[in-house]
Every structure is written in structure tokens, then in C-alpha cells.
């Protein structure tokens, strides 16, 4: 048992995750995958497509219990876990605001969300249905839902996939803004190295399937120093450390 108030990290120690199809074909998705994310740290899981990143997040979210190994989630806030899925996954029959409020614990249902909606540029969209939003707006609503719950840990699965680069860049800045307002232990899946270097404190580099950790890349620089010049230096040193990785 951890004493109250201690900084509990996100600790992942998955020995093995095997998918077995009905035809008897088995695919080993994860093998000896272990890493830690410190309390209040923003980490990125970087790995090639199909290596098992989504599988890892699904295990941490409790959606897949068929694996060997263990993990430990941080505590604090509403003691909840929040997720931004690969798709926005908003309920199409509920408005943006209802979608956000439904995700809140009963006691927080009526809390004031003006600040959050303002920050994410959703103030005028609260009463719209998801079908009326562009993909960029829908992803912002998904971010709003995740942050509104004041989670103890935040898991994001390629939250900026299939957006044009300008929209993605704007959303990355929005994500940083809401995250900085309440730094939460976060683990974000991506296969975009630039994105990882811009957002994270630490990059966890994964191998091809079955995924295990190739190494860590710490970005100690505060985010507002990461200008284009610094970013290209970071890129260079990343490539020096992980020559084979994109």
C-alpha cells in the first residue's frame, strides 16, 4: 500500500499478450513490455504501426483483461482514468455538452465547464450534435470530456490522427494548454516523432511486434523552449540514440 499523497507512478509490467483467433492462429502482440511514467509526467509511446500500442492502452483501460502481467495506475483527482480514443467516440445522439457531462462522476455533473470549453474553443458549440462538428472539433470535444473528469491518469491514442497538419498542430497546442492547467500523468500513443518531441517529457520507444521497450528518450527542456531550432537538435539526437527508428 502506498501512503496517501505519495507520488504513485504509472507502472506497466506486461509479460505477454497473445491474440488467439477462432481459427487457432495466435499473434503475440506484447512481450515483456515494462515501463514507468512518473506522477505528473507526459509520456509518449512511440512505435511502428501495428506493434501493439492500442493493445497496451486497452489493457491499461481495463478493456482487455486477457493478458499475463500487471500494471499499476496513479491515484489522485477523481481517481479516474480518462481516455481519448483513436476515434472521437462521442455519442451522436447527445450534444457536445451532454457528452462531456455524462462522463463526469455524479457529484461533478453540474460543475462549471465554461473555462474548459473556452480554452478548447468550444464555447459556441456546446449545444451542437457531434454530426454537426468537423473532425477537428469532435476531437476537441473528446479532449474536453477527458479533462473534465479531472482524471488521475490520461491515456490518449493518436488523438490527432487523420487531421491536416495545421489543425493537428493547433490541437497539440490546445492539448498542452489544458494539460498545463492541471498536469496529469499522461500516456499518449503516436507514431509521429515530431509530435512526441514537442509534447512529452519522456518518449518510450517500442520495437516491432511483439512490442517491448527499445529505450527511453527524455526531453528535459521546458516545452516553451522547444522552438524549430531546438526541435531539429532534438530530432538529431533522437536519431543518434535510435538509428533504426523513423
Amino acid at each position, binding site marked *: 500500500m502506498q501512503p496517501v499523497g505519495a507520488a504513485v507512478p504509472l507502472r506497466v509490467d506486461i509479460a505477454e499478450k497473445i491474440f488467439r483467433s477462432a481459427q487457432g492462429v495466435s499473434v503475440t502482440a506484447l512481450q515483456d513490455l515494462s515501463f514507468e511514467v512518473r506522477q505528473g509526467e507526459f509520456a509518449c509511446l512511440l512505435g511502428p504501426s501495428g506493434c501493439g500500442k492500442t493493445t497496451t492502452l486497452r489493457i491499461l483501460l481495463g*478493456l482487455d483483461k486477457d493478458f499475463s502481467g500487471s500494471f499499476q495506475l496513479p491515484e489522485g483527482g477523481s481517481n479516474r482514468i480518462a481516455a481519448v480514443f483513436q476515434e472521437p467516440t462521442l455519442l451522436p445522439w447527445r450534444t457536445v455538452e451532454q457528452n462531456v457531462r455524462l462522463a463526469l462522476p455524479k457529484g461533478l455533473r453540474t460543475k462549471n465547464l465554461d473555462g474548459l470549453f473556452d480554452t478548447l474553443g468550444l464555447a459556441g458549440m456546446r449545444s451542437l450534435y457531434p454530426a454537426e462538428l468537423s473532425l477537428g472539433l469532435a476531437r476537441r470535444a473528446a479532449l474536453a470530456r477527458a479533462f473534465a473528469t479531472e482524471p488521475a491518469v490520461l491515456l490518449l491514442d493518436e488523438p490527432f490522427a487523420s487531421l491536416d497538419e495545421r489543425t493537428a498542430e493547433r490541437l497539440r497546442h490546445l492539448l498542452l494548454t489544458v494539460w498545463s492547467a492541471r498536469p496529469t500523468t499522461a500516456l499518449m500513443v503516436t507514431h509521429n516523432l515530431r509530435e512526441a518531441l514537442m509534447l512529452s517529457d519522456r518518449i518510450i520507444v517500442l520495437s516491432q511486434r511483439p512490442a517491448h521497450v527499445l529505450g527511453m528518450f527524455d526531453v528535459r527542456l521546458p516545452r516553451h523552449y522547444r522552438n524549430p531550432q531546438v526541435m531539429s537538435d532534438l530530432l538529431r539526437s533522437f536519431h543518434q540514440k535510435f538509428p533504426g527508428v523513423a
Partner: protein
Amino acid sequence: MTAPDTGDRTPGVAAGISSQSGLATAAAPVLTIAVSLLGLCLLWGLAANAWPSRAFPGPGQVWQVLLAEAANGDLFCHLGATLGRVAAAYVIAMVFGSVIGVLLGSYRRADRFFSPWVILFLNIPALVVIVLAYIWFGLNEAAAIGAVAVNKIPNVVVTMREGARALDPGYAEMAAVYRFGPLDRIRHVLLPQLQPYLAAASRSGIALIWKIVLVVELLGRSNGVGFQIYLYFQLFDVAAILAYTLAFVAVMLVIELLLVQPVERHATRWRRRPA
């Protein structure tokens, strides 16, 4: 990031002045329906004039009977009795059929086991169920309504099973991650996804149920439209038979227009404003 495409704006504009344009667009189909029904009455009147017979009364005679039955109160008393049975059987069939259907659609093993049962019940003639219900449970209201519901439940099960198979697991997973309570899951995740299937089951359900209710009344009740039709059949009074039939059809039409369609429009409002 509103869409600059003007095509996208039209629905929003239309919604803004819906009170006026809504009336205009609603009036056109109603007019068509009225003209069409009037034409049918006219044709009926002509045919009844060409072949005058006690077994084939014209619309005027039927109208007279209708007025007389309405004046002495019998009409409303029997319509009410039938309507009550239809409503009770409908609610029971929808509730049980939906629960069973969703369970079968969600658990493949249970579905494989119970599938033959569903097929069996689908193919038992309504009359058999009614007769057996009266024999086993007596000539009472519960047996009557139960028999009608049992006739309808397999249809609802089949439709709702399809609905459950079409559920998107992504929404259920989102609800699990964000710890939705069981009631919220049903109300905000499950039912909206099942809504088109519920609507389909309801529609075919009401039509089927009211026809079976008449048989149930004919065989074992002492009021209701079915009972009256049987009575007038023995008296060979075709005008009265038609009067009761048309009165009940009219009631069902009004329910469709004033209850079913508005409810459906409300349930699908999020669909009508595409981005």
C-alpha cells in the same frame, strides 16, 4: 470551423423558420391523403349504388350507423376496451421482446440455444396460442392480453436481436472507461442505438396486435370491437361491422400521426441536422 459550404447551411436555415415552412410542408401530404381517401369513398359509393344489397352498404349507411353507435355511447365503450387491450399487449410484448432480443443478440451461446425456440414460437398460429391461453388460464382479461403479447413477442425478439448485433462496441467501451452507471448506459448508450429497431418493431407490432386483439375478443370477451363485429356478424349487419372497423382504423391512424411520428421525430432529431 463552420463549414463554408452553402449546402450545409440550408438545414439550419430551414430549422430557423420551421414554424411556418413546417406547417406548409406538413399540409401537403395531409391534403393528398384526404383527397385519396375521398376518392376511395366515392368509388365505394358508386359501387354500392350499382349493386344495391344488404351485404354491401354504401358509405352513407355506414356513417349513419356510426353516428347512432356514437350517440348511445356503445362505440366509445367498445373502442376503449379494444384500445386498452392493444396498449397493454403492446407494452408487454415490447418490454419482454426487447429484453430477450437484446440478451440473445449479445450472447452468442444463448442465441444458438434459444434460436429454435424463437422459430417455433414465430410459427405457432395466433389462433392456437389464443385457444390454449383461454383453456389453461380461463376466459379472463389476463389470458386475453397475454395471448396477444405472446403472439407478438417472437417478432420483437427477432428485430431487437438484430439491433443488439449491430451495437457499436466502441460506445460501450467509452461508457466503461468513463464509468457510466447502469441506468445511464441504458438511457444514453443502449436505447438510442436500438431506436431504429424499436421503431420498426413498434410499427409492425401495433398493426399485428390490433388484428389479433379482435380475434381474442371474438373468442372470449364480452366487449370490444371484436366482440361487436361477432355480434353483428350473427345479425348479418354489414353496415355496423364496417362502422366499427373503420372507427378503429381511424383511431389507429390518429395514434400514428399524433403519437408515433412525433415521438420518432423527437428521437431522431440529432440525425436531421447533418454537418
